[in-house]
């Protein structure tokens, strides 16, 4: 089942963790374990030579505000995000996604950093974070000092389970700009039952409302491609257009073309396209009416 873990580390600071990562390279990172444990048991994830538990690293915890940006620590759990007052005030669409996430027990253990680095096309925080223009912060320690680079979340995913994180890097935080007044954002998750269901599809929508249309439109879909998808053609079809029946029909048709879902046990590709079309229509009608 596993190749044999040779070393277990539980660093107590970011500096310690990054130093070890730089030295060792081959490390399996552990946060809440809710993806890693079942994947390892099923043989879908192989342990590297070192297992590093991130829990003791205080720099990765909590939610804070820095100017006009919210900093969501990689170790923030889904439960913490669900109850965080800053998230509730500024990022209700992320809160909504956390509310539809698994079960209480899993929300209590699952972390934001784990959800992002697991890089499942169905990861539920990814779609709202994409439409909120979130960036990931990647920390490393190539020499004496800690180095932090930022990357738009939309560029972070390469394929299922694959990201642009380098082996010596940790995802330290997610940075989200506080939306401007007039900002509207929606999240919709379709699953066969309300709890404990991996998304069949999910939809995120955001924009700034200006007399009857949306500007700065962002649309993202989950579980319809190899990675969570920013839907640029769909965004363009909506950007600046009067939110009337004609626009909504055109946008939904564009979305149906733009997604590239697969058939799997949860749904057929055709059904997923229908869901995208119909649920985006409903979402846009709701935005137009409110």
């Amino acid at each position: 089942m596993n190749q044999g873990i040779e070393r277990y580390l539980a660093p107590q600071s970011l500096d310690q963790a990054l130093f070890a990562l730089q030295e060792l390279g081959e490390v399996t990172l552990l946060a809440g374990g809710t993806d890693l444990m079942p994947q390892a048991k099923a043989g879908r994830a192989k342990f590297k030579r070192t297992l590093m538990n991130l829990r003791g690293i205080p720099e990765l915890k909590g939610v804070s505000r820095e100017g006009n940006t919210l900093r969501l620590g990689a170790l923030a759990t889904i439960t913490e995000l669900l109850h965080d007052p800053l998230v509730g005030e500024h990022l209700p669409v992320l809160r909504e996604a956390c509310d539809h996430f698994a079960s209480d027990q899993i929300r209590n253990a699952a972390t934001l950093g784990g959800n992002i680095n697991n890089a499942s096309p169905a990861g539920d925080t990814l779609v709202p974070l994409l439409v909120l223009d979130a960036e990931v912060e990647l920390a490393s320690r190539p020499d004496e000092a800690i180095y932090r680079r930022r990357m738009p979340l939309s560029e972070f995913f390469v394929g299922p389970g694959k990201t642009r994180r380098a082996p010596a890097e940790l995802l330290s935080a997610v940075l989200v700009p506080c939306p401007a007044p007039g900002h509207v954002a929606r999240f919709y998750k379709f699953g066969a039952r309300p709890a404990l269901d991996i998304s069949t599809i999910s939809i995120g929508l955001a924009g700034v409302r200006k007399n009857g249309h949306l500007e700065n439109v962002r649309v993202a879909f989950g579980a319809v491609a190899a990675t969570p998808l920013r839907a640029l053609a769909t965004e363009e079809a909506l950007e600046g257009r009067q939110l009337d029946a004609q626009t909504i029909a055109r946008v939904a048709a564009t979305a149906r073309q733009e997604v590239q879902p697969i058939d799997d046990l949860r749904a057929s590709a055709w059904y997923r396209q229908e869901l995208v079309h119909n649920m985006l229509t409903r979402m846009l009608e709701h935005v137009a009416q409110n």
Partner: protein
Amino acid sequence: MSLKTEIEFTLNGVKRRATVPVEMSTLDLLRDVVGLTGTKYGCGEGECGACTIEVDGLTVNSCLMFAVDCAGRSVNTIESLAGEPLGERLRAAFVEQGAVQCGFCTPGMMMQAAHVLSACGAQDDKAIARGIEGNLCRCTGYKKIVEAIAVAGKATGA
């Protein structure tokens, strides 16, 4: 050969040490290393809640948690509810309301029920049902379980 490591943690209020393989789950630690078998293995993958325990005041699925991750933390299992006021109220209510049939889900259900009640106080049926979404019961149909938790909760409030 898998690597073992020694951990120290608090289990049901008592400090203890254990030596565990680093890839072991907390469920296996509790059942096979410590010998506390009240916590049940249902699915082993986070779907059923039979393995629910409380760690640092929050409930989690012990089958998804690495045993090494118990280090330095406070872990409570179903055994900790015996003799506690809330645990006893839950036990009486589960029996009186007929919320137990085969009983396999019951330890996890009671751990989650205790968490739902103590974290949020007495609650309506909807909030209780929401709280136990992660716990499957194949026998009762949930109605009696929700009623039992509500009864135990009302006793809490009084």
